[in-house]
């Protein structure tokens, strides 16, 4: 079998194991193949569930995902510990190279694993800083320091208030305390008691050049609070500038100010939007009124024009008449034809034609004896209307057949199969 034939069943996921293995080997070896077609059918198959009535899973499923991921993380931690305890430590694989943030997270979880399932709320105030990426960039460096135990020493204890305090001694940064809540987070992958990095420094730490050298930075995986022990002032490692709580406070106020400005801006946008839609509504109303008036004018002009033409025909010599009707009794369409044998002027008064499909027009035909000749093409209107046409004098005689058919808008040289109305001159 040609391998291309497998792509349909492969896309739908119904290949047998043997065929599947053959097909995958083609893909993995980058052999010449109809890859674009395969991609199209894979997308097509993936669209199938989109038409189902979407159902939301229970909220606890999300918690289950979080728990499972933490069990997984624990396994990695244990594996790492086993490797460290071996006589000759093996180099860690990249994915196993846990940052101190991960290490602390797992360690904390071990401490509180018994209460993981208890639904309690997290207490720690969230502080995030704008240089999260820098955390990651320094995490590997910090991890090395952590792993070697050369610079850090972490002591854990749990207070009565439910907070775990991890004292971190560091030769460069001095002594810090990492406070961890034992109350559960509503966040997805944080366990309730996960260590929350908490910086008191709401100021822009990105401006502090020496921050990148702060090994504890890697510990602040978003939500852990780090504060210098017993110090009302927060001193940057390395003896940089000192920031007090009072200096931090105005920042909070500025957030409130920003919030007010944003709310005012949103209010302004809302008012403008309401005004805009009101004006647009008025414009639409006027447009509708104009359209109605225009239609009435056109109707009046048609009527007057039709009446004038009818007067001319009726006052000429050799007046002929035809009543066109449908063979289908369910069709209410109707047309009357007035013809002047003297001038060749014809007038069609038509009503109740069905609406046309997008690319069609109505066409009036007259029988020349051997074939049909087109008189005029027009679009349907929902009200009775009048159309004028000229007819060759030799065709204006009793018994001449007239048809109204639906044709494609590009035109036709003879009547199509879709005859709407027909009749003969009398």
């Amino acid at each position, binding site marked *: 079998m040609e391998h291309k*034939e497998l792509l*349909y*069943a492969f*896309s*739908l*996921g*119904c*290949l*047998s*194991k043997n065929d*599947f293995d053959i097909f*995958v080997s083609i*893909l*993995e070896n*980058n052999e010449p193949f109809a*890859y*674009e077609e*395969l*991609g*199209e*059918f*894979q*997308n*097509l*198959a*993936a*669209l*199938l*569930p*989109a*038409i*189902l*009535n*979407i*159902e*939301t*899973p*229970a909220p606890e*499923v*999300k918690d*289950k*995902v979080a728990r*499972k*991921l933490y069990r*997984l993380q624990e396994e990695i931690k244990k594996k790492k510990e086993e490797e460290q305890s071996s006589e000759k430590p093996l180099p860690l694989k990249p994915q196993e190279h846990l940052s101190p943030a991960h290490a602390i997270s797992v360690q904390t979880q071990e401490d509180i694993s018994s209460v993981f399932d208890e639904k309690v709320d997290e207490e720690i105030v969230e502080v*995030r800083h*704008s240089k*999260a990426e820098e955390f*990651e960039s320094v995490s590997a460096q910090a991890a090395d320091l952590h792993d070697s135990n050369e610079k850090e020493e972490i002591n854990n204890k749990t207070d009565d208030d439910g907070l775990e305090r991890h004292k971190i001694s560091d030769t460069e940064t001095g002594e810090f305390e990492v406070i961890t809540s034992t109350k559960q987070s509503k*966040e*997805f*992958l*944080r366990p309730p008691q996960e260590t929350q990095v908490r910086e008191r420094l709401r100021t822009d730490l990105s401006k502090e050049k020496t921050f990148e050298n702060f090994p504890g930075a890697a510990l602040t995986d*978003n939500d852990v609070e780090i504060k210098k022990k017993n110090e009302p002032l927060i001193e940057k490692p390395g003896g940089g500038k000192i920031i007090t709580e009072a200096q931090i406070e105005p920042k909070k106020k500025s957030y409130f100010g920003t919030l007010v400005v944003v709310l005012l801006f949103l209010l302004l946008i809302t008012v403008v939007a309401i005004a805009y839609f009101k004006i647009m509504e008025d414009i639409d109303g006027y447009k509708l009124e104009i359209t109605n008036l225009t239609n009435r004018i056109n109707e009046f002009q048609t009527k007057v024009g039709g009446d004038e033409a009818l007067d001319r025909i009726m006052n000429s010599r050799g007046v002929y008449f035809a009543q066109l009707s449908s063979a289908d009794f369910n069709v209410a369409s109707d047309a009357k034809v007035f013809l002047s044998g003297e001038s060749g002027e014809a007038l069609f008064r038509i009503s109740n034609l069905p609406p046309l499909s997008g690319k069609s027009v109505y066409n009036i035909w007259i029988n020349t004896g051997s074939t049909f000749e087109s008189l005029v093409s027009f679009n349907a209107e929902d009200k009775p209307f009048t159309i004028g046409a000229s007819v060759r004098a030799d065709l204006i005689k009793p018994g001449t057949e007239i048809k109204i058919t639906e044709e494609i808008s590009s035109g036709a040289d003879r009547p199509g199969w879709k005859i709407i109305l027909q009749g003969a001159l009398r």
Partner: protein
Amino acid sequence: MVNIPSTDIDLLRRVAKHDSKALEVLYNRYSPLLYTLIKKMVTEQSLAQEILVDVFVIVWRKSDKFNFNSENVYTWIVTLARNKAADEIRRKRFAGNAPEYTEGFEDNYILPHLSPKIDSLDLKTALNIKGSVETALNKLTDAQQYVIYLAYYEGLTEEEIAAKLNIPLQTVKSKVKIALSNLKENLIKGDA
């Protein structure tokens, strides 16, 4: 405040770097669709929930195996969920004779093997054109729709479909091909 990128591909990149917040956003975005798909396949609610959990654990562990050049997280994650649910169905069906679920098995039979030349597709687009897909599907014959249903939702292989319907294997292969080709053609015509 760290801004979490909102595109699927950015989220998956962050998941590959073990950003749990990104996985949460991805979960919030995709769990309803995936849960609906899985439940449609396995019918049992608790099993569907378990499989959904497994799917996101796989996403967490194996997102680095995604071809980030393709930028089609939608098809990858939907196919992953479908494969996982189909595997569960087959394991129940084989009752003990199923192959052992190992890392290698997961990499080969559960993780999707997407074409390197696949167009990008996202959840929003998929949901926007669901009406067209439904119309295109409804235009297929009952037999074609049934074959697609058996293959995609019941996780049957072509051989199993042939046995179930008591028709030659070659007929099933032909029907699968025609059904998908017509579905594609109907979808293109519908969009035109």
